[in-house]
């Protein structure tokens, strides 16, 4: 039995290490299954503060405030949550706050819940329209350098950035058969 189970993915641990290297102090999130491991790392680590949100746009404002106070942050969400952020992204753009969003994609690749498809299909376009630099990543081998590239441009820009972790990379969730 066990030898047929896929090994737990290690890319969330790579992301966590990069965030720590960049001295990210606040990790805000609305849960997604694809982010479960990274959220767990955030919640259990002493050196970062995990900030659970009720809705994703809180995180855009929260991390702007963190930066005002001298702390870096990262914001974890699934692609549907991007839709909740659109107007609040004007804060990052107008004030040139650094922003690093880590978005797990749904409605994109082998999706079995049609309700995820409308937002998943427009996620990257609406981010671009809102002035966010997008960094799609499709394969496990590219996660590390993509997050590194986005983090650099976020904190050293400053710029608003989003890494889009594809459904192909995460593995599509199946409902029933």
């Amino acid at each position, binding site marked *: 039995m066990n030898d047929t189970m896929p090994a737990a993915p290690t890319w969330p641990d790579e992301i966590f290490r990069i965030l720590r290297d960049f001295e990210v*102090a*606040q990790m805000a999130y609305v849960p997604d299954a694809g982010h479960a491991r990274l959220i767990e790392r955030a919640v259990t680590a002493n050196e970062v*503060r995990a900030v659970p949100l009720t809705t994703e746009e809180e995180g855009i*404002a*929260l991390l702007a*405030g963190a*930066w005002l*106070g*001298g702390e870096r942050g990262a914001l974890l969400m699934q692609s549907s949550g991007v839709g909740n952020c659109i107007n609040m992204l004007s*804060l990052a753009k107008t004030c040139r706050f650094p922003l690093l969003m880590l978005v797990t994609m749904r409605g994109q690749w082998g999706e079995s819940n049609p309700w995820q498809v409308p937002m998943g299909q427009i996620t990257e376009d609406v981010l671009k329209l809102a002035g966010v630099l997008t960094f799609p990543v499709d394969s496990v081998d590219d996660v590390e350098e993509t997050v590194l590239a986005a983090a650099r441009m976020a904190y050293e820009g400053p710029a608003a950035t989003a890494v889009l972790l594809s459904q192909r990379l995460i593995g599509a969730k199946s409902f029933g058969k």
Partner: protein
Amino acid sequence: MNTERAKDYPLRRREVVAALLRDRDEMLVVTGLGASSWDAAAAGDHPLTFPLWGAMGGTVSMALGLALAQPERRVLVITGDGDALMGANGLASVTVQNPANLSIVVLDNERYGETGMQPTHTAGTTDLAAMAAAVGFQTTGTVRDQGEFDAVLPAILRAPGPMLHAIKVRAEDLPLTLPPRDGAHLKDRFRAALLGPEAG
């Protein structure tokens, strides 16, 4: 909804905000879009005030991030009831973090003042202090006159939080006093004043 009563509330928002900011010392201040930002500007522009001109619903969440990053400093939110209602679920996220240095003041004129004085839900039966208490704020209050305000002012500025006070202020249209509007400038000057010139 009762659209008459707020016209007669005795507290005046400009005086309330002037009193909140009079001895501000090292306090960090975030103000919500519209009249709250104008009130703070009327009390005197300051680099450690971040006046929002947009991002409606984000004031409390922004102040939470700031309060967590600067636990030794008092962080004061001054915002309107419309902004507080739009960002109301952010109040629940505040209580999860429970920052002792965060104090929220809502200038509750029961109106969307900036857009033509349309009534907000607090002109009906919505009670912002009760909402805050329901999501877990230990310290909340509704302030209705000068005596109540004078009594609670020291706590708003210094007592351990997080706390939220809804101050019932008169629904009135006041002359505009505008703070700087370039967001990048507001951010850079705030960081320079707080973290040192190289942080700007």
